């Protein structure tokens, strides 16, 4: 039989009593704690039947000299300091002793240690929620929520953020309830409630996972998996096979070599943005293929709002598109006197915006647009 075993024992401060219960359970099974570092514990086989543990919150800050006096008192009382972590003192009973538990006044213990620890833990659980809320407000005041579907990395980041928020919320609610129960027990001079060990282990694991989830949440949205190029022959070649309306499609004869193409997306939302130039001006084409109708509706609503917004980066002054019947599921049109028009259409789950010097009410032009945007497929 093995004489040594290692175990992950990462417990949060409010779960001190759960750690104590776990150590006592192992002691009854013949395992004695040797050390506990960074949530990893080493146990050795023991023959002792009188071994028990007492876990205390480590007071901070406590002057070293006072610490020694306290540890001496504990030692005299039969409790040997077995392990020290950032959060806990773990005491083991000395052989042949059956020492009195370290805390025999629950009300005083709550007043001196636990009320502060639980308040701090609640603040600690709520502050990431607050930071996430502020981050969300900051991002969504600049971008639309549906834009997260343009990249799998952004979706993954959102998932991490959701997991973090849910985890912190559940922990914060548990702490609030635990604190109330604790105060009630302390006021009635009863022993404090011991949190369930599996749940305490889960909370400890959650605390370990938090930094692992925060990092990708912050970094993943910056991973660019799309294609974005300015003025290249590669763009011209790619555009031919993509759902982009080009200047040449609208009848331009002198096409400039300048162009811009961006292709991005995920299985849920595919987006192509193309700019082409002719001697008369520029043709802009945006194409969105959405996985779900509600996503298409979101895209349409945002595009209509963006086009009318003063501070949105347009390639033209703000415009208000009006609904028109052009044979699509939905269509909006803006016509300028000089012949420049902006057309926004929705056909099923496809949304497209085309702008340029063209008459989009002309059935022939519309036919070309339909063909280029693959709306006939």
């Amino acid at each position, binding site marked *: 039989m093995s004489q040594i075993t290692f175990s992950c024992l990462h417990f949060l401060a409010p779960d001190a009593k759960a750690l104590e219960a776990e150590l006592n359970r192992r002691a009854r099974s013949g395992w004695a704690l040797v050390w506990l570092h960074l949530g990893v514990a080493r146990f050795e086989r023991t023959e002792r039947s009188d071994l028990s543990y007492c876990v205390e919150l480590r007071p901070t800050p406590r002057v070293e000299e006072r610490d020694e*006096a*306290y540890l001496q008192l504990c030692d005299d009382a039969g409790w040997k300091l077995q392990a020290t972590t950032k959060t806990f003192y773990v005491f083991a009973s000395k052989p042949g002793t059956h020492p009195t538990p*370290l805390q025999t006044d629950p*009300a005083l213990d709550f007043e001196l240690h636990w009320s502060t620890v639980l308040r701090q833990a609640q603040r600690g659980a709520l502050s990431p929620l607050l930071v996430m809320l502020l981050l969300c407000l900051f991002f969504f005041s600049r971008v639309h929520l549906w834009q997260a579907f343009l990249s799998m990395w952004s979706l993954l980041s959102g998932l991490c953020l959701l997991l973090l928020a849910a985890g912190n919320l559940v922990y914060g609610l548990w702490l609030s309830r635990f604190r109330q129960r604790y105060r009630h027990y302390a006021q009635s001079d009863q022993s404090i409630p011991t949190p369930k060990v599996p749940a305490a282990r889960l909370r400890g694991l959650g605390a370990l996972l938090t930094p692992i989830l925060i990092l990708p949440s912050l970094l993943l949205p910056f991973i660019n998996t799309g294609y974005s190029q300015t003025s290249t022959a590669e763009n011209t070649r790619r555009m031919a096979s993509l759902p982009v309306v080009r200047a040449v499609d609208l009848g331009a004869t002198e096409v400039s070599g300048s162009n811009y193409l961006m292709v991005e997306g995920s299985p849920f939302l595919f987006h192509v943005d193309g700019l082409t130039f002719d001697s008369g001006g520029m043709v802009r084409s945006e194409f969105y293929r959405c996985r779900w109708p509600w996503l298409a509706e979101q895209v349409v609503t945002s595009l209509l709002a963006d086009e009318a917004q003063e501070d949105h980066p347009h390639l033209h002054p703000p415009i208000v598109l009006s609904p028109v019947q052009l044979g699509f599921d939905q269509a909006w049109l803006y016509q300028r006197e000089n012949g420049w028009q902006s057309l926004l259409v929705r056909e099923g789950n496809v949304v497209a915006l085309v702008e340029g010097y063209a008459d989009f009410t002309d059935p022939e032009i519309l036919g070309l647009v339909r063909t280029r945007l693959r709306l006939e497929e």
Partner: protein
Amino acid sequence: MARKKLDTLTEQMYYVLLSLTEDRHGYGIMQYVSALTQERVVIGAGTLYALLARFEKDGLIRLSAEEENRKYYHLTSAGEQLLENEYDRLRRQVADRERVLRGDFP
């Protein structure tokens, strides 16, 4: 229960103060109280340490000596007065009970 003022002592507080009518260190206090009360009142080291710190801060006890990380304490006059007041309160409680039992008080 939060005890902002030490106007009413808990049993553990009372016996800690009572034990410090003579110089004693922490573990000495624990042994003394346990023996005096025939183990009816036992005080944990953590609780005792917190009480000693509070009593010292409130001027009820003072550090009288220190040997090998063991601190010896003794009651101050304020501590003696508090203990006396508590004793009077407890005695009056007992006397009241006896009066009721004897039927001296309706």
